[in-house]
């Protein structure tokens, strides 16, 4: 029997962690993810789980300790946000290239500066090429579900990569909303026990993890790592299919909301997609064919599938919650733009920046985007509109 509850996103992910009872969690607190190590250490202190909780002195150390624990053969996780993720940077690459299936609960917050604590995707987007799988959530329910699925994806023998399960800071992490939880034993059975094929504490198989890679072998290691990320796409879909059987909730690489016959599509990531859905419904009531594509999986990037899903749209707004200062749009626009070109999609494309440093975005803002798309579909994209900030004061 599913459990009806109300919880914040942080509470929900901590609950999933409690149900999974991983072996090791090193962590260092940072807003807005601080509650995660706090809740987990409460579970540990109350004897609810026997996770080894390691308070460390920095995020560089939390990721280093996670790497050590995971290499030893332990199911491992940590949590962080913003500058905490930045401080892990070099170790993120080590975790991925050592092929360690660590889970990271990332509560998205902008990188400094200006110094700000609110939601932005610049932290995870900055780490998009670090070799981690990235899955994003629209709300507390998805944050919980994604975490329940995380180890099944990361630990799959065809993958063996670390995974970042992301949710929007404050908007999701601190908002209490209704949620449907799975029972403890259902989660335990679904996630299963971690039985690593190779691990440092196996005295039958003496090995080194993370040694110097000579040029003669290093490129093959990287190619194998790239293949693992390619393999992850199918594994993510397979795990989602199994998850649907225990939860009734369906997940893919992305969600299509009233997209099938849409002339105008918005593509976005995270909590803003819920707000956009209300805008879609309002416009549909007026007979305007609006649709939404919500990215769930950003790494691996489902380029071909996205281009296919968007193939009959006349105009597309790609919305980024992270500036990449490339003078060429945000990270989602750059990648999706390339995919649309590669697969010969002819739609007009706008790139819109929104929600930086927690700037609010409303249903009305999304309605205006659809108006702009309708105009672009007829008149083409004006040069000054192709890369625009929503709600900016000039």
């Amino acid at each position, binding site marked *: 029997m599913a459990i009806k509850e*109300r919880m914040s996103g942080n509470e929900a992910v901590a609950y999933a962690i409690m149900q999974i009872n991983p072996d090791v969690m090193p962590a260092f607190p940072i807003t*807005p993810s601080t509650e995660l190590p706090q809740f987990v250490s409460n579970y540990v202190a109350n004897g609810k789980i026997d996770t080894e909780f390691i308070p460390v002195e920095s995020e560089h150390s939390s990721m280093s300790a996670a790497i050590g624990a995971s290499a030893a053969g332990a199911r491992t996780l940590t949590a962080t946000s913003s500058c905490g993720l930045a401080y892990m940077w070099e170790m993120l690459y080590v975790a991925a290239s050592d092929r360690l299936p660590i889970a990271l609960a990332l509560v998205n917050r902008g990188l400094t500066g200006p110094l700000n*604590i*609110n939601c932005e995707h610049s932290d995870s987007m900055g780490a998009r090429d670090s070799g981690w799988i990235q899955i994003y959530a629209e*709300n507390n329910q998805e944050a919980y579900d994604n975490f329940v699925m995380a180890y099944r994806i990361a630990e799959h023998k065809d993958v063996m990569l670390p995974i970042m399960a992301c949710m*929007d800071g*404050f*908007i*999701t992490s*601190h*908002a*209490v*909303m*209704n949620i449907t939880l799975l029972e403890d034993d259902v989660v335990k059975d679904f996630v299963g026990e971690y039985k690593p094929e190779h691990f440092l504490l196996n005295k039958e198989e003496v090995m080194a993890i993370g040694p110097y890679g000579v040029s003669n072998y290093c490129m093959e290691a990287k190619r194998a790592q790239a293949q693992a990320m390619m393999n992850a796409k199918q594994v993510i879909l397979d795990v989602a299919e199994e998850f649907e059987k225990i939860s009734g909730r369906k997940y893919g690489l992305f969600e299509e909301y009233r997209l099938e016959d849409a002339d105008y599509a918005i593509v976005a990531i995270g*909590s*803003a997609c*819920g*707000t956009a*859905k*209300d805008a879609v419904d309002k416009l549909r009531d007026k007979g305007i064919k609006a649709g939404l594509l919500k990215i769930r999986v950003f790494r691996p990037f489902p380029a071909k599938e996205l281009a296919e899903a968007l193939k009959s749209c006349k105009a597309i707004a790609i919305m980024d919650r992270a500036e990449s200062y490339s003078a060429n749009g945000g990270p989602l626009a750059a990648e999706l733009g390339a995919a649309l070109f590669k697969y010969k999609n002819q739609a007009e494309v706008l790139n819109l920046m929104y929600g930086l440093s*927690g700037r*609010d*975005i*409303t*249903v009305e803002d999304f309605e205006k985007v659809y108006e702009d798309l309708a105009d672009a579909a007829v008149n083409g994209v004006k040069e000054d509109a192709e890369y625009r900030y929503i709600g900016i004061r000039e």
Partner: protein
Amino acid sequence: MNDLIEIRWHGRGGQGAKTAAMLLADVAFSIGKQVQGFPEYGPERMGAPITAYNRISDRELRVHSNIYHPDYVAVVDETLLHDVDVTSGLSVDGGILINTDKNKDELIPLLRGYQGNVYTIDARKISEEALGKYFPNMPMLAAMVKITGVMDEERFFKEMQTSLEHKFAKKPEVLEGNMKALRMAFKEVQ
């Protein structure tokens, strides 16, 4: 009750406006509603104006923006009336609830022409009498439940009793005072 009720709370850091919003979400959840309770965070410090929000509905809640056109507004600290445009976007069909020992006629001139219902509650007096300390969030919560009609009186007290018994399992001595504050506020809001 309308299909969707949107509430905005204004308080100062440390007064419990966020807690009141979370408690309201909890109690509305307990009667089967779809709920949202969330704070808007700035540079956190004691005494700075803060905002928190509630959405309560029978339908799934998908919107994650702040609330600009609330049905109801709660003002936990009346000094905010001078600094913050608390009635901004407030529906005239709804109302504003102000924690004050003044009477309405003194406050209405501060509401920037707001034409809807004005409710007052002396949460300090109630809290100090019932709890011996100043915690305005319980009286504010009860008053908000009453004016919005989110749930009926008996059900509200029953749910709060259960929830506070759980919350104060290790401090049962404060349970009675909190229940008393809720009951007084329910009666005294005007």
